[in-house]
């Protein structure tokens, strides 16, 4: 889902930092902030071997588009790219990239931090965590 200002993708292949960076680059912008969420080898004291992401793709793209619109309209950034991986993702691989550009750096940091928080709160994507001794859907159980 690509427009002049937003590039939103859910991908089954490795995410590219350069693709996101090149999309947000803008002659009028001096501040670019990129967040990358990678797969960590531990969680809550247990060893993680890999993750598996499942997305409700149509709705996830819509929710991501709302987040991008808020970043542009309320935080004042010029461009935003959000790429999220789906399927199996190994240690140190990128699960998500959020990249924003703005005239000054403050808006870039704020919008980037807002976007990853909003993504984790409301975008219908689910993470199955594979541990040494089993697997489970994250956040599913009390």
């Amino acid at each position, binding site marked *: 889902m690509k427009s002049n200002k937003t590039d939103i993708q859910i991908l089954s292949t490795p995410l590219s930092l350069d693709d996101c960076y090149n999309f947000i680059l803008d002659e009028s912008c001096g501040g670019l902030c990129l967040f990358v*969420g990678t797969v960590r080898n531990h969680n809550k004291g247990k060893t993680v071997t890999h993750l598996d*992401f*499942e*997305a*409700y793709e*149509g*709705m*996830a793209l*819509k929710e991501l588009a709302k987040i991008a619109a808020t970043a542009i309209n309320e935080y004042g950034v010029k461009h935003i790219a959000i790429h*999220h991986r789906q399927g199996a993702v190994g240690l140190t691989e990128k*699960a*998500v990239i959020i990249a924003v550009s703005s005239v000054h750096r403050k808006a870039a940091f704020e919008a980037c931090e807002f976007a*990853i928080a909003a*993504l*984790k*709160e*409301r*975008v*219908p*994507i*689910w*993470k*199955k965590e594979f541990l040494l001794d089993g697997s489970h*859907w*994250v*956040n*599913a*159980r*009390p």
Partner: protein
Amino acid sequence: MEIKCFGIAKEITASSSLKIDGAIPGDVKSLKEWLKLKYPAFNNINNCLIAVNQEYAEDTVALYPTDEIAIIPPVSGG
């Protein structure tokens, strides 16, 4: 009426898509109750939301057979 299932909801229902024929739940609240009756395991997990036509839907939203309906367990992307 067809209901998409994701994440742990897919595990509980053992299906990525439920079909309800005949008398269908009239609103989101009825659907949630129907799901808990049919699949009691829903009582043991964190609260699921319902999306109607790819938007989060309150309990009072009415359901129609042609709606795109989905069970949304607690999300964990990113």
